[in-house]
C-alpha cells in the first residue's frame, strides 16, 4: 500500500473524524481512540481489499460503528440513548450522504485544544496531534523531547480536559476574542518554532511551518470573516515563501537582503498578499496584519535595494502601539536606520541595549553589528558579531555570524 498516501489521508481526515465523534462517545480521548480504530481497520483491510472509492466515507462509516460499539459497552447505556440514535441514524447507504451528514465540528476541537486552562506546551502538542493528525513520535521529534515525555504531556492534557470540565464548544461571545487570540498564538508559536528551528539541525525537524499553515488554513476556512485569522495566515505564507532562499547549500542562514528573490515562492506570496488585502480592508489592523503588511513590503520589492524602508519603519511604529515590546522596538530601529537615518537607528539600538531587556537575544547585537558595518565601523561590528554568535541558538545562525565577524575583521585591518 502507498504509505505516503495513507499518511496524507490520515493527516487530512483525522481531525474531522475526531471532532465529529466527541459528543457521541463522550470525550476527546474516547473520540481519538475511536478515530484511531477506524484508521487501524483501514490499515488491515485496504492492503488486500484495495482502497475504497471514497476513503473519507469509509472512515466515517467505520468510525460510527466503532463509536456505537463503544457506547454500547458502557454501563450508562440509558443516558446515552440520544447519542446512540445519532450515531446509528444516518442510514447513509451512499458515500456522498455519509460525508454530508457527518458534522464538521473542527471549530469546537480547535477551541478545546487551545483552551487557556491548558499549558502552552500542552496546547501545542494537542493541536498538532488532534488537529494536524501528527503522531506522538513525530511531535516528540519536532520538539526534541523523548517520546515518553510527549506521550505523558498529551495524556495529562486530555485528563485535564476531562476532569476540569474544559468544554467542547465554541466559546460565548464574551470570551470569543480572547479565545481566538489563544488559538492564533498556538498556531504562530508552532510556525515560529519551525521557522527559527531554534535548536538543533534544521533538516531533522518535521515541518512545523507546514503544519502551522495548515492550521491557519483550517481556521480561515472555519472563521472566514475574522481579519486576525486572515492576517496570521497571510503573515505565515509571506514568511514561508522565502523558505528556499533563506538557507544556503551548506545550511547557513542567508539574510533577507542577500536572498535570491527568484527562489521565493510567488504563488504563496500572491495568496498572502490577497489575504492581507482582505484583512486590511476590514478595519484597523492588529498585530498579525501589521506584521504581514511588513512582510508584504519585502515581498513586493523586486530587489533588496528597492525595499521601501520608510514604509516599513512606519508600519513598525504602528505595531509598537499595539504590541509595545523590545523586539518590535529593535525592528523599528533597524527600519529607521535602513530608511536613511543610520545614526538615529543606531542610537535607538544603543538605548535598547542599555535597557538590558534583550540581553539574551542574539538579534540585538547582530542588528547593531550590521548597522556598524554599514557605517564603516568594522572593528566595532566584529565585536558585536562575536557577541551575537555567543547567544545564537542554531548552528546555521552561528556559522553565519562567524563568517560575518571574520569578514568584518578582514575589512577592519585593511586600509580603506
Amino acid at each position, binding site marked *: 500500500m502507498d504509505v505516503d498516501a495513507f499518511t496524507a489521508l490520515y493527516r487530512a481526515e483525522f481531525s474531522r473524524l475526531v471532532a465529529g465523534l466527541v459528543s457521541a462517545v463522550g470525550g476527546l480521548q474516547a473520540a481519538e481512540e475511536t478515530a484511531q480504530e477506524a484508521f487501524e481497520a483501514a490499515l488491515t483491510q485496504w492492503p488486500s481489499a484495495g482502497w475504497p472509492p471514497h476513503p473519507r466515507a469509509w472512515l466515517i462509516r467505520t468510525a460510527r460503528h466503532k463509536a456505537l460499539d463503544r457506547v454500547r459497552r458502557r454501563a450508562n447505556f440509558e443516558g446515552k440513548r440520544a447519542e446512540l440514535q445519532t450515531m446509528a441514524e444516518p442510514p447513509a447507504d451512499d458515500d456522498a450522504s455519509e460525508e454530508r451528514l457527518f458534522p464538521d465540528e473542527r471549530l469546537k476541537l480547535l477551541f478545546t485544544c487551545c483552551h487557556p*486552562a491548558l499549558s502552552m506546551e500542552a496546547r501545542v502538542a494537542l493541536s498538532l496531534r488532534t488537529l494536524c493528525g501528527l503522531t506522538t513520535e513525530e511531535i516528540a521529534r519536532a520538539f526534541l523531547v523523548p517520546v515518553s515525555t510527549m506521550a505523558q504531556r498529551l495524556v495529562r492534557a486530555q485528563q485535564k480536559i476531562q476532569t476540569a470540565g474544559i468544554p467542547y464548544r465554541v466559546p460565548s461571545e464574551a*470570551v470569543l476574542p480572547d479565545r481566538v487570540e489563544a488559538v492564533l498564538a498556538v498556531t504562530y508559536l508552532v510556525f515560529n518554532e519551525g521557522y527559527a528551528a531554534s535548536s538543533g539541525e534544521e533538516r531533522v525537524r518535521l515541518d512545523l511551518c507546514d503544519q502551522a499553515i495548515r492550521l491557519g488554513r483550517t481556521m480561515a476556512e472555519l472563521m472566514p470573516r475574522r481579519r486576525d485569522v486572515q492576517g496570521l495566515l497571510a503573515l505565515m505564507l509571506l514568511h514561508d515563501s522565502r523558505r528556499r532562499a533563506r538557507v544556503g547549500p551548506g545550511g547557513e542562514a542567508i539574510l533577507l537582503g542577500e536572498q535570491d528573490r527568484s527562489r521565493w515562492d510567488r504563488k504563496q506570496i500572491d495568496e498572502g498578499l490577497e489575504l492581507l488585502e482582505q484583512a486590511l480592508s476590514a478595519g484597523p489592523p492588529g498585530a498579525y496584519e501589521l506584521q504581514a503588511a511588513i512582510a508584504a513590503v519585502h515581498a513586493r520589492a523586486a530587489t533588496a535595494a528597492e525595499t521601501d524602508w520608510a514604509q516599513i519603519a512606519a508600519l513598525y511604529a504602528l505595531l509598537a502601539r499595539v504590541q509595545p515590546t523590545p523586539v518590535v522596538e529593535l525592528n523599528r530601529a533597524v527600519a529607521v536606520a535602513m530608511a536613511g537615518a543610520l545614526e538615529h537607528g543606531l542610537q535607538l539600538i544603543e538605548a535598547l541595549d542599555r535597557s538590558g531587556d534583550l540581553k539574551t537575544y542574539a538579534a540585538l547585537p547582530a542588528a547593531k553589528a550590521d548597522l556598524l558595518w554599514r557605517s564603516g565601523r568594522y572593528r566595532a561590528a566584529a565585536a558585536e558579531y562575536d557577541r551575537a554568535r555567543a547567544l545564537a541558538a542554531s548552528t546555521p545562525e552561528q556559522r553565519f555570524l562567524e563568517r560575518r565577524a571574520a569578514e568584518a575583521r578582514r575589512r577592519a585591518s585593511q586600509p580603506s
Partner: protein
Amino acid sequence: MQYLLLIYRNEAEHAARSEAERAAVFAEYMALSKSLQAEGSLRGGQFLHPPSFTTTVRVRSGSVLATDGPFAETKEQLTGYFVVEAADLDEAMAIAARIPNARDGSIEIRPVQLAH
C-alpha cells in the same frame, strides 16, 4: 460539575484600605452571592478570618504538632471560597471573573471530586 473557587488576596493591602472601601467590597460580595443564588449556581461559600488567626496541625509519630500561621507564607492568602455548580470550566471561569478579588488578587478554580 462542582467547582471550588478559592479566593486569594493580599491581606496587608486589604487591611490598609479605608473602612468605606472595605465595606464596598463586602457589599459587592453580598450582591454576587445573591445573584449566584438566584442563578441557581451557588452551593456554598464563606469568608475566612485572616492568616494571623490560622493554626496548622500535623500528626507525626503519634504526636499532634501545632504551629501558628498557614502552611505556606505567600503574598496572597486564602481569604474565602465559593462552591458553585457549573456546566463546564468556561462557566466556572466566568463566575470566578465576577468575584471582586479577581481584580486585585486571584481565584483558583478546583474541580470538586464528588463521591460516587
